[in-house]
């Protein structure tokens, strides 16, 4: 089975690992950015 589907399986897993890593990086980066934005808004709203 490995001889027949090994390349497909290996290639698919490499692709999936890359997608998972970049998806997590993108999601976390958006959260950090939104958090800063929210904090900034809260700070501005508190100003007299």
């Amino acid at each position, binding site marked *: 089975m*490995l*001889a027949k589907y*090994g*390349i497909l*399986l*290996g*290639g698919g*897993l*490499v692709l*999936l*690992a890359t997608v*998972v*890593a970049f*998806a*997590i*990086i993108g*999601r*976390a980066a*958006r*959260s*950090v950015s939104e*958090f*800063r934005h929210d904090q900034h808004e809260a700070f501005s709203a508190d100003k007299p």
Partner: protein
Amino acid sequence: MAGTESAHHEESDSQLLHRFGYAQQLLRDMGGFSNFAISFSVISILTGAVTLYGTGLNAGGPAVMGIGWPLVSIFVFMVAASMAELASAIPTSGALYHWSALLGGPGWGWITGWLNLIGLVATISAIDYGCAGFLSPMLGFGDSPSSVMKVFTLLLISHAVLNHVGIRAVARLNDFSAWYHILGAGIIIGALAFFAHKQPVSYLFTEHFTTLKFGQSPVPYWYAFMSGLLLAQWTYTGYDASAHTIEETRNARVKAPWGIFSSVAISGLFGYLLICFVTLAIRDLPAAAAADNPFKFIFEHAFPGSGFPLAVMWIVTIAQWFCGLACVTSTSRMMFALSRDKGMPFAGTWAGVSRRFRTPAAAVWLSALLAFLLPALLLMFLAARHNVSDFSTLYGAITGVSTIGLYLSYGLPILLKLRAHKAGVWSAKTNGPWNLARWSVIINTLSIIWVAFITVLFVLPPNHLTGLAFVPVIVGLSIYYVIGVRGNFKGPIRQAASEAELLKMEAELTR
């Protein structure tokens, strides 16, 4: 401008720490790179991926490298992301232990702390014992268990002394170590890519090979392949170091989570390139698998008659020394944090700080002593049973204990966070800035499933020695918990009741 930003983060980091009842006692001068560097150094692709290379190759051949590494990486990315979320929400240096205690109560915190400690101590053992296994023959002392143990002892002493007296030097060495690992892996990968004879890329995915047997019977290939995943899984350990040093990191709620995740992701990339190019350079697979040190064997055959194989061995051995150094730092911090909250026997001793060097000196030396005892006791056990006491048997057992201990301690707080989420205790407002938002529950769930799976996998044959080492420890801990801990251990202890008192403590430190 940079100074203003730094001062702003310092202020908010300290204020946040006060909310958890702690004063800013540790010097917060670690940047994002330093935080990444300590985890990257403990993961150390030049340690795990090299010393366990033969274990992986014998278990499932080239497919363990080509297919096994990305398979493990997918789930480890999820575990690391789940831990990064927790670090961002609860940025204290007790890390896993504090997360579990706050989410599940003191008992959960205590068991998480101990599992983490067992995993970290076994990691020091594995790194330094692996380093000794490489260094002893290179220094001309041979590779007998007694020679390796002597070199192992000297390596442990060197790490303990440096961690005791030279914490500034240790911090700088950790930064240097990150660059050293990237450069070292780059040299090895480059040399193999440009100058070695290579197999076709399909070799990584289609070659069906194992030497594992149950007695005289062959092992099903899928099972052998699974047991070979220990190679990748053990390499991906120790990234909790970024969380243990979170109270020393500026803008901690963002930088430390990135330190956890980026150290894993970058190790994933470089580690994969490294093991793939090493595997593609194999000329005679059965001979390489049968060699005492398959990694060394492959280089000697890829670059015959040159000094490069010896240079590679030195590059790897020095990287392992750096890795052991960072791991002693991480372990001693964890031991210090648990002892400070009276979670260990003779806690007062291990929570002591050297007045002269301002390091947790007793915890440093206890870490080294326990790391020495694990392989020593396993060797004695094997000798008493007239069993095989070769390097790979012992090394597999130690790395198994390390992997299971650490991953259980990673998994427990993630499980407790899921429970808190279900109970409505953990909401979007509880999240730190680094979070996975709607993806959090599914990624946390997959992380738990993976941790449960590898915990079972790595105590089954051929890793049954891991179970023999781990089970008595768990039984002992359970007895100790019931007799001496339950009801007495209160979990993380607030240093002061009010912010004014915490500020006073901080002012006294800066005098």
